[in-house]
């Protein structure tokens, strides 16, 4: 097991390096550079000023030199410097990370818990009206674009009903501390987390329902009935455990998006996280920030892929690591 994890980590490091090179090349292939944007914003048309900016940022160096400098830094977790914000990129990401993790992790757990429960309920009531309602809702949320749900949720619960705050991370200027602050953040969290989780909730519902129905037709479920077990135990111990295997695969996919997957939600709800940082970095051509965010997201995807594989080995005894 340890050898398997180590081998995978080594492999991940190479993949990460490849991603880094690819991202760096892609960004540099795009027309225009940060210096031009900054100069344009400052209203400067002077060629000399532009040259100075480029020299200051190191943009006058040949491509491979820039790449080499960047990689050397990234290995030491130095992701460069954002001249727009006057801060090292790593620090910027580190500042924004907690807000994003709070949002995406909450959304992750909301969608898994509600998705699996609703899926099990729908499967148990297959063909009845409660199944139809759950399945229809799941299909609806699956098909509706995220930003639209977000806007409508903000409009309804915040603007019209006034139940929940519609944007931001906490009430500005309230200076809450301790529990009061946690509660305040929690209230701000409800709408974005629910919105972000809805899509995956819908997928989990459909997946769990289909998987439960499929497993309940298998032979060993009949064996369990022939033992005289009660329906509840059969559902829990025999059907659900087997039905959750495909759900784990999906959960791994969702978990991989834990850093980079909330751009839309964070933008609509003005949530000060990585997603919004990325959005702003794109419009400002803040390449170092953009590259940094890509790098961290890619690392997370690789990490959660590995975790998913390990979870699989634990829950399914048939899977053995072959090297």
């Amino acid at each position, binding site marked *: 097991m340890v050898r398997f994890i180590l081998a995978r980590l080594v492999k991940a490091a190479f993949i990460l390096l490849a991603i880094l090179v690819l991202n760096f090349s892609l960004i540099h292939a795009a027309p225009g550079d940060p210096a031009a944007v900054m100069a344009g914003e400052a209203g400067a048309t002077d060629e000399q000023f532009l040259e100075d900016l480029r020299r200051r940022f190191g943009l006058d160096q040949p491509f491979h030199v820039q790449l080499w400098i960047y990689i050397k830094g990234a290995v030491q977790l130095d992701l460069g410097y954002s001249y727009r914000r006057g801060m090292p990129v790593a620090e910027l990401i580190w500042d924004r990370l907690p807000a994003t993790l709070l949002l995406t992790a909450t959304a992750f757990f909301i969608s898994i818990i509600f998705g699996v429960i609703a899926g099990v309920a729908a499967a148990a009531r297959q063909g009845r009206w409660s199944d139809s309602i759950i399945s229809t809702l799941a299909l609806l949320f699956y098909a509706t674009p995220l930003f639209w749900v977000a806007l409508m949720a903000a409009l309804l619960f915040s603007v019209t009903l006034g139940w929940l705050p519609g944007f931001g991370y906490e009430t500005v200027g309230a200076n809450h501390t301790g529990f009061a602050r946690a509660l305040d953040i929690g209230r701000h969290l409800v709408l974005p987390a629910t919105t972000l989780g809805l899509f995956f909730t819908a997928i989990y519902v459909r997946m769990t329902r289909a998987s439960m129905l499929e497993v309940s037709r298998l032979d060993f479920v009949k064996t*369990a009935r022939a033992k005289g077990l009660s329906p509840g135990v059969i559902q829990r111990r025999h059907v659900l455990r087997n039905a959750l295997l495909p759900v784990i695969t999906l959960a791994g996919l969702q978990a991989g998006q834990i850093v980079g997957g909330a751009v839309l939600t964070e933008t609509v709800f003005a949530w000060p996280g990585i997603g919004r940082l990325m959005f702003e970095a794109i419009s400002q051509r803040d390449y170092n920030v953009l590259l940094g965010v890509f790098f961290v997201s890619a690392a997370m995807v690789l990490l959660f892929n590995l975790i998913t594989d390990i979870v699989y080995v634990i829950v399914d005894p048939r899977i053995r690591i072959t090297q």
Partner: protein
Amino acid sequence: MSLLSIRDLAIALPKGADRPHAIENVSFDLAEGEILCIVGESGSGKSMSANAVMGLLPEGVNPVKGSVNFEGGDILGLPERAMQAIRGRKIGMIFQEPLSALNPLMRIGAQIAEVFEAHGLLTPGERQRRALELLREVHLPDPEKAIRAYPFQLSGGQRQRVMIAMALALQPSILIADEPTTALDVTTQAQILTLIEELRQKRGMGVIFITHDFGVVADIADRVIVMEKGLIVEQGAVDDVLLRAKHPYTQKLVRAIPGITAGEKQDFEAAPVILKVRDLNKTFTTGGGWFKAPRVVHAVNKVSFDLRTGETIGIVGESGSGKSTCGRCIVRLIEPDGGSVEMGGVDMAMLKGAALRSNRKRIQMIFQDPFSSLNPRARVGRILTEGPIAHGTPRREARERARELLELVGLDASAMKRFPHEFSGGQRQRIGIARALALDPDILIADEAVSALDVSIQAQVLDLLADLKTRLNLSMLFITHDLRVAAQVCDRIMVMQHGKLVEIGPAGKVLSEPEHPYTRSLLDAIPGKAYEQALKQVVEAG
């Protein structure tokens, strides 16, 4: 007094099924310590009757009439909760597929302990101890290890023993066994049958044994029920039904049982060799488990033989003996590791690309499972013409030929426009044969081609193959685990064990005077040999 008595049982099928009732007017009794066999072909309703006793009918299938009397009351239609108390405790059940009948994610010990837990008996520690005792009682090798194993770490026969241990955990008075040995090898089957017999004697259980194999019936049954299309057509003591059958359906089934003695065989000594296999080798490396360290399996180990024009060679052996791998290596569905497969001066094992494709059509395969070996989304017309068109036959010509082929295998030309699911298992196997013949092969490889079929259908398909073989002058490799079938169709038989060819010779000689001890053990394990003798005497006596 009888243990179980069923009266006038009728079970309705959902609307749209091919008949309104799964079973009708079913009445029978089971006495203490008696083994009652229910025989019939697939769809005869034999499993339905047994499942009804357990209250384990599929959804939408419900009893509409009759009674199941057990321990002084009618248990048909008891509420679920009351049935739970009976299942496992009073009536145990084992199923056909040991590979899928156990939860893949739970340890063996936990699955047995569950039986006690379901009925609120014993403490967790005692349950494990009892589980171990039970595993010993069903003669599972290394029970201490097996109790901690997962199902996938056990073989099919071992899993069936676990199923039996589970069914017997609470000493039920009735054991229902639904085709428990159908998926097992003959030697494993013989062991399981001995085990059931032993446990019946020790515990005085009544056993309802559902099977389609008359040999098994003859060996273990006290009484027999024959079912056809949901009705009991005949029931009585085993000798009365099997030797002196009154109902024409029973007589038909008895006639369809292939005999183990080989009939008149042609000698192909003088015929030219069409396929020359030399030192064929294939190894698989498998991962380790609880009972085996990671190891290299010699699936096919230096196998050499000659197939002559017009001849049929049977390849027999148990599962895992390498007989299927051997067939697949010859057509290059699996890449052999070494050796040569020479056909008309060309070494099939070495060919590549276009040369392989054009030579491959000379050898065609017929597969075991008529349900999964045909593309469910393709009409029969496409299935039959795809091969010839790929080899350059004009579409019209190929379709014309497909119609002829359908006629040749005994199907109507209108089958061209239909999908595989619209046909029965036997008809689909005919389509499979037509597909193999569409490329005008010289050699057919039939891999367990009749194993999934009922005896009467099996006999028809075998007749068809024999007829086609002589008409088209085909040579055939017939892979089977069923020595009775091999005896009927093969000129020569080769026996494989652990990838090695242990014996090859004329069918009559291999079956009557086997040289290798393994061949002898295979022959000894065949059920119903005494019955076959008795039947012959009855037939001779008129």
